[in-house]
């Protein structure tokens, strides 16, 4: 049985166990359900869980262990001289054997037996089944593949038998253990709690996954390129290996600083646009505006947060960039269509609702008594805001700005479409610069080769980006949290 079918059968067994268990519990109660410890459905769920949970665990564990065992078994069959080959070659042999095994399985039995007896080429037979082979399989590969198929069959059958036996055993055991005093609900709830707990650790696992995946590739990258060249070099010129052949050196230079500069510059422009506008809008809406105005304007501003970033990028590319360029041309200033200003301003527009809604929360958290005290002493509203509300809300506002900065640094699609490609270090906002996210995208789209520094550098950039935003986020979130607790 294939694994999906097996899982369905197990689930069906679980359902059967559920029904049988409820029936049995009802019969044992003798019609007086109140004599049972738990409600009927808990007895059903108890039996179903005993049948399904250990069995599914077995299937999952088996699926993880199976390829590992099969691989080492295949290696034990390979001719001894092949095992000494480098890893990448061994992997090619493994995948070739896998393809042959698949072909042997799919090809019609009669044709196959004939071809094997005549030592006729198998490639054609395989390609008729939609399996492409680069070269005719060698004799040892066929032998190993046949053995592999036998083992795979064996593994599959033993898994099916073991799983069905376990499911039946679990179900029957649970059914037999049902009696009115059985605390079925407590057992079921323990399993549910374990499930809830497991769900809450997914977030941790995601973070661990992010760090682990990028760390491995980054270490790999630093084995090819010294860390000093990455962190301290002022030149970004990765040179795809094919193009590098003409340039003399194929090594490429992976200086982080130009990208860091570009990222910081664009983010700075974005914050210069977003922070004053967002903060002033939030202040006006929470301190001055009538509730009617607020109910209209707030959702309207939040519309900006609902637009996908790719649309902002497109807007910058087809509308804002050219407009800015023409504007510059009309007053005699050469402006690049993909300048720092284009990307920064559009990104700033994107961040306005983010800043304004965060600062709105913060401003509303400032106790009303502070405002009333200030107004009572004769201060005007703006003086109250400037001298009382803002200083009181300052930590929260700083947190909001930092969160916005982390957004700006990690923003991808706007800069991919609207910022430049060349890694310049320039202070001129009318020139193009590029960012880390742009380079991650450009290094990872297209054909990937997972042992070249050109590809691996994307992971190093990703890890750098992750660390920067992590520090910003954790600091900002703790500031905001402390601020809230201060006034609660």
């Amino acid at each position, binding site marked *: 049985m294939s694994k999906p079918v097996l899982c369905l059968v197990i689930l069906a067994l679980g359902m059967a166990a559920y029904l049988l268990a409820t029936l049995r519990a009802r019969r044992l109660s003798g019609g007086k359900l109140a004599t049972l410890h738990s409600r009927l459905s808990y007895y059903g769920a108890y039996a179903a869980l005993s049948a399904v949970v250990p069995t599914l665990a077995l299937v999952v564990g088996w699926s993880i262990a199976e390829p590992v065992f099969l691989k080492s078994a295949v290696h034990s069959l390979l001719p001894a001289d092949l095992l000494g080959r480098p890893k990448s070659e061994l992997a090619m042999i493994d995948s070739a054997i896998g393809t042959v095994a698949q072909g042997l399985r799919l090809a019609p039995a009669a044709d196959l037996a004939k071809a094997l007896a005549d030592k006729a080429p198998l490639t054609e037979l395989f390609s008729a089944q939609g399996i492409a082979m680069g070269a005719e399989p060698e004799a040892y590969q066929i032998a190993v593949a046949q053995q592999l198929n036998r083992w795979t069959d064996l593994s599959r059958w033993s898994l099916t038998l073991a799983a069905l036996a376990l499911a039946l055993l679990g179900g029957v055991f649970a059914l037999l253990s049902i009696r009115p005093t059985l605390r079925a*609900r407590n057992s079921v*709830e323990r399993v*549910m*709690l374990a*499930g*809830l707990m497991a*769900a809450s*650790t*997914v*977030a941790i696992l*995601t973070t661990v*996954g992010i760090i682990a*995946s*990028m760390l*491995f590739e980054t270490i790999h990258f630093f084995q090819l390129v010294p860390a000093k060249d990455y962190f301290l070099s002022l030149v970004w010129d990765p040179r795809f290996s094919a193009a590098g052949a003409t340039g003399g050196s194929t090594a490429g230079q992976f200086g982080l600083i130009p990208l860091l500069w570009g990222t910081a510059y664009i983010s700075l422009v974005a914050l210069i646009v977003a922070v004053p*506008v*967002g*903060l*002033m809008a939030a202040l006006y809406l929470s301190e*001055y505006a009538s509730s009617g105005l607020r109910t209209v304007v707030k959702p*309207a*501003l*939040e*519309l900006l*947060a*609902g*637009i*996908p970033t*790719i*649309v902002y990028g*497109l*807007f910058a*590319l*087809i*509308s804002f960039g050219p407009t800015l360029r023409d504007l510059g041309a009309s007053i005699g200033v050469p402006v690049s269509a993909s300048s720092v200003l284009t990307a920064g301003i559009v990104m700033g*527009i994107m961040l*306005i*609702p983010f800043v304004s809604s965060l600062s709105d929360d913060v401003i509303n958290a400032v106790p009303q008594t502070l405002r009333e005290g200030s107004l009572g002493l004769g201060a*005007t*509203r*703006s*003086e109250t*805001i400037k001298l009382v509300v803002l200083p*009181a809300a300052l930590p929260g506002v700083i947190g909001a700005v930092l969160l916005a900065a982390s*957004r700006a*640094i990690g923003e*991808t*699609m706007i800069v991919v*479409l609207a910022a430049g490609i060349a890694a310049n270090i320039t202070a001129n906002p009318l020139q193009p610069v590029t960012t880390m*996210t742009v380079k991650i*995208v450009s290094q*990872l*789209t297209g054909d990937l080769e997972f042992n070249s520094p050109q590809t691996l550098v994307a*992971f190093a950039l*990703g890890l750098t*980006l992750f660390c920067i*935003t992590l520090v910003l*986020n*954790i600091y900002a*979130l703790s500031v905001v949290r402390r601020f809230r607790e201060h006034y609660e």
Partner: protein
Amino acid sequence: MTDVTAEHAPERTAARSAFDAAAMAARVAKRRAAEWRFQAYGIAAISFGLFCVLMLFGVIISKGLPAFWQSAIQLDVALDPAVVDAAGARSHDDLMAADYESLIRAALYKKLGIAPEDAAKTALADDLVSSGADVDVRQLVLDNHAVIGTTQRIWLLTHDTVDAVLKGAIDRKVPESNRQIKDQQLAWVDQLVADGAIKSGFNWGLFTRGASSKPETAGLGVAAIGSFFMMLTVLLVAVPLGVAAAIYLEEFAPKNRWTDLIEVNISNLAAVPSIVFGLLGLAILINFVGLPRSASLVGGLVLALMTLPTVIIAARAAITAVPPSIRQAALGIGASKMQSIFHHVLPLAMPGILTGTIIGLAKALGETAPLLMIGMVAFVVDYPKTPMDPATALPVQIYMCRRRRSEALLSARPAPPWCCCCSCWR
């Protein structure tokens, strides 16, 4: 707040000693002016924000709207059996391979009244009809073999340049040498429009067709299916996990280091750049687990991980908002804690959870960067049948056709419906 008042105490004493009517009036005027200026800044900020909203939507709508209409040309195509099905066997392969383009061209020459031998004119005329039109004719023949041998009056897509002229996107005043459409072609188009043989209709193909290198036959259908599979995956993965995690954290988690770690983690994950999730998908799901590149399942899983914190945060807020009296009442009549939560708290929190889920879904639907990382930029022409087939997504398609002139216009279109669905739930 004692420090704030203390800071300004010296100023105030100075002000009191300098009390006199004229100075006071001046000070009040100054303070009023400051007050007025401050309000003006606020109004300016709000106006700027609203202006941005209007400008963005104006650009999206004005550039996107024309793409919903598309011009078509009416031709009497003679489906000559000798060309369509020379063998007469009506076999599928023969019908697929027939040269429908020559039939369309013949019909076009007849309509325009030019001799098929006039190479200069026929070359110009060929550019009036979309080079993807033969697929439509082929489909007509494949659907109904009886049309072979008859002459069918059908509407076929015009070439992109003709469409652009009719929408006013190409300036007729530009000298012929710099224009994408020649004078002769313009004359034909005008004549055909006057005859009613070129008409503009609603562009249904936009919703059914796939990616194409020809702007007039490009559509969002294939990308929409890819996006649909991804949303389904997000819904099935992120929502149960997110709600379960929220229940645990709100109702069961003991206050200790581990819970703190989880909480910090979740709020941090919500702010991690989306592109990093793409790298995670590439390194773990594709390289390590070995799932196929470009599959919508992988895209969906990556987006689900990205949406998870949003769902958890929204669900926690919704669960906290359920009054404790509900829990106490349930516990008081003998329900277990689990029963009180699943039977009473969760149903009451459901609307809030749903809102958060929809915001998260809308965010995931518009997300592009992580999908670029896992190779969903493939040029996919066929409809994906399962989540494991190569697929693409709506925002990725915008990214892919960004460089082509008219498709850049085309592609702003998916935006308005998204914006609406995002904003009305906020």
